[in-house]
């Protein structure tokens, strides 16, 4: 099919005319836009009147939050004259913060032409984890009307978004906002920085006074015990059975298993157990019976080794001590249980001691020992585990009896004196309890409040 050339739709003359028309329109538009006054092209815009601001908050004050571990600054102010009075239309306060920097400032970070805009970058101190920009006001919080205080408590970790460093100064201001959207700025506070305190003065009454009383009692009874005064401690069946259990193992020529539990070295029950271990080891050394102490915690194992070694030394048989009496098993709860269970059945232990901190393994251990026919003495301060020991062991030291046992067995004046002092402290607290109940009945809330801790 032959190609027919398409006639041009626009001739050069038409194009020229069109261009001139466009230029004319453009000129007219620009001219009209630049013409002042009320023209047809100008759209009149009616702006709403600015909301009337409330009276600002005054007397703003920032200071380090007292009795804390740092990373907190308290901000206080006097309420606006329109908050609860005057026009009474304040709805909230907005707290703003900016750093008041005096630390090293990087010259590279100062934007040209703005001397007040300074960047503080903690890279100057060797880290880039956080930074603050002076004169940049960050909104911290909105607090409701009637408030005159805000605690700026920040994160302690440098990497956290709300990190509030100690010993860096900040300034604060408060915006007062009314129901019409009016905003009034307060003055800027003087710089304040956060820091931690070593002494919590709010705890002095609750912690300090009981501690002083208890210490006085302890010192008195320790001195009494040292001076030879007989301090009575009522016999406990579990304690009296210790010698019998060791004797049984000796007669049967079978080892004694001593389980220190799963507690770390800082647990009071573990420390008490170590004291009893010392006493048991002395007897064991005297009787030349074999002792097995499988450990769950490496630090406890180290302490137990020291304890056992010393006990052998005290018994006059240091040659009998072997390092593998106390050995580490694993720090996995049920793997430890599996290993101790295996030891019980394979070594046919005559006596098992479970003294210390126990968790879910208590019943598994005690039940296996019972199947193996061992005499079992247990003790723990974990109330959830005591029932299992009660049902599966021959003797159980309940809670504090474990601590008493360590004093009873060692007969050391320090421990005996402490136990006696503890009893007296309990008597004092029983008195306090009665007073508290009477006070509660008579609506004397101050007694209960005295023993209420709010940290």
């Amino acid at each position: 099919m032959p190609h027919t050339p398409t006639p041009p739709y626009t001739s050069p003359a038409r194009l020229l005319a069109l261009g001139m028309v466009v230029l004319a329109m453009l000129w007219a538009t620009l001219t009209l836009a630049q013409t002042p006054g009320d023209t047809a092209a100008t759209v009149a815009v009616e702006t709403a009147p600015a909301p009337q601001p409330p009276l600002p908050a005054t007397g703003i004050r920032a200071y380090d939050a007292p009795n804390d571990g740092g990373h907190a600054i308290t901000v206080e102010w006097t309420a606006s004259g329109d908050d609860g009075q005057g026009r009474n239309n304040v709805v909230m306060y907005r707290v703003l913060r900016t750093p008041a920097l005096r630390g090293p400032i990087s010259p590279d970070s100062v934007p040209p032409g703005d001397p007040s805009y300074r960047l503080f970058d903690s890279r100057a101190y060797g880290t880039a984890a956080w930074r603050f920009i002076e004169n940049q006001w960050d909104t911290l919080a909105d607090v409701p009307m009637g408030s005159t205080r805000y605690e700026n408590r920040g994160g302690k970790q440098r990497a956290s978004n709300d990190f509030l460093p100690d010993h860096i100064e900040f300034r604060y201001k408060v915006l007062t906002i009314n129901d019409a959207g009016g905003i009034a700025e307060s003055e800027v506070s003087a710089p304040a920085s956060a820091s931690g305190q070593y002494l919590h003065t709010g705890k002095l009454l609750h912690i300090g006074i009981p501690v002083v009383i208890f210490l006085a009692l302890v010192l008195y009874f320790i001195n009494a015990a040292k001076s030879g005064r007989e301090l009575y401690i009522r016999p406990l069946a579990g304690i009296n059975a210790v010698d019998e259990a060791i004797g049984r193992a000796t007669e049967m020529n079978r080892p004694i298993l001593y389980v220190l539990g799963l507690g770390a070295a800082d647990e009071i029950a573990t420390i008490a157990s170590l004291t009893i271990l010392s006493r048991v080891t002395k007897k064991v050394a005297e009787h030349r019976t074999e002792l097995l102490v499988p450990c769950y915690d490496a630090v406890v194992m180290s302490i137990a080794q020291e304890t056992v070694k010393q006990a052998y030394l005290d018994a006059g048989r240091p040659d009998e001590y072997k390092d593998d009496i106390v050995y580490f098993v694993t720090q996995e709860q049920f793997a430890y249980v599996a290993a101790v269970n295996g030891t019980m059945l394979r070594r046919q232990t005559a006596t098992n001691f479970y003294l210390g901190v126990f968790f879910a393994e208590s019943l598994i251990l005690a039940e296996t020992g019972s199947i193996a026919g061992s005499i079992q003495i247990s003790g723990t301060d974990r109330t959830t585990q005591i029932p299992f020991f009660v049902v599966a062991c021959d003797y159980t030291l309940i809670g504090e009896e474990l601590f008493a046992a360590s004093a009873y067995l060692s007969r050391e004046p320090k421990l005996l004196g402490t136990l006696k002092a503890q009893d007296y402290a309990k008597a004092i607290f029983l008195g306090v309890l009665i007073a508290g109940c009477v006070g509660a009945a008579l609506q004397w809330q101050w007694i209960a409040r005295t023993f209420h801790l709010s940290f």
Partner: protein
Amino acid sequence: MERRPIWYLVGLIAVILAFAVSTTLRGFYITLGSFLTLSILSFLYKDNIFYKAAEHLFVGVSAGYWMVMGFWSVLIPNLIGKLHPPLVRPFVPAIADQPPSYWYFIPAVLGLMLLWRLSPKWPWISRWALAFIVGTTAGLNFIRYMASDLLGQINSTMVPLVVIEGGALDTLTSMSNIVIFLGVFCGLIYFFFSKEHKGAFGVGSRIGIWILMVTFGAGFGYTVMARISLLVGRFQFLLGDWLGILS
């Protein structure tokens, strides 16, 4: 211990079956897990070769696992990362740019002192570190015990024994408060060690031990329920993940 060849045979068959059943790697792991679970459960019958194998594997693997965990989650971020942060950049990039904290030399030295226990000549050096650990942690725990175990308890027990609500006696609340007060009071009496439990004191002590035993009984039932849920979990693994009987 008496050897029973039948058990070796049963074990061999179990292992062969396990491999036969395992058509995929995940299936193999599940079968291996089931075999180890059954091996541990076989202890209910008596100590045997399967239990011993599972026990030793469990102990060995867990000891190794915790050592590796301790190295990567404690030593690397909390010691090396504090003393020389750039060194840990490949492992813990979040702390690599932080400034070094030379205070951590103190625990590093204490940790090294602990290792002196392995020295045959100067094992006593480790005692200083041990003394520090025990003393510091005991001191730190003191406040916690004082706050929660002593003052918190006292505060919670200070309740009115006779509760009047709207001019009328609230019997249930009054009974509840009396039980709380008597329980704490007599429980404390039981834990008096420096006085003989005779006469009225003995009666209080006996009430105290009864209250303790009732509490232990309730605790026993509650905890046994939790243990049974653990057993149910194991059976779900055996019957569901392994055998596919449970969906």
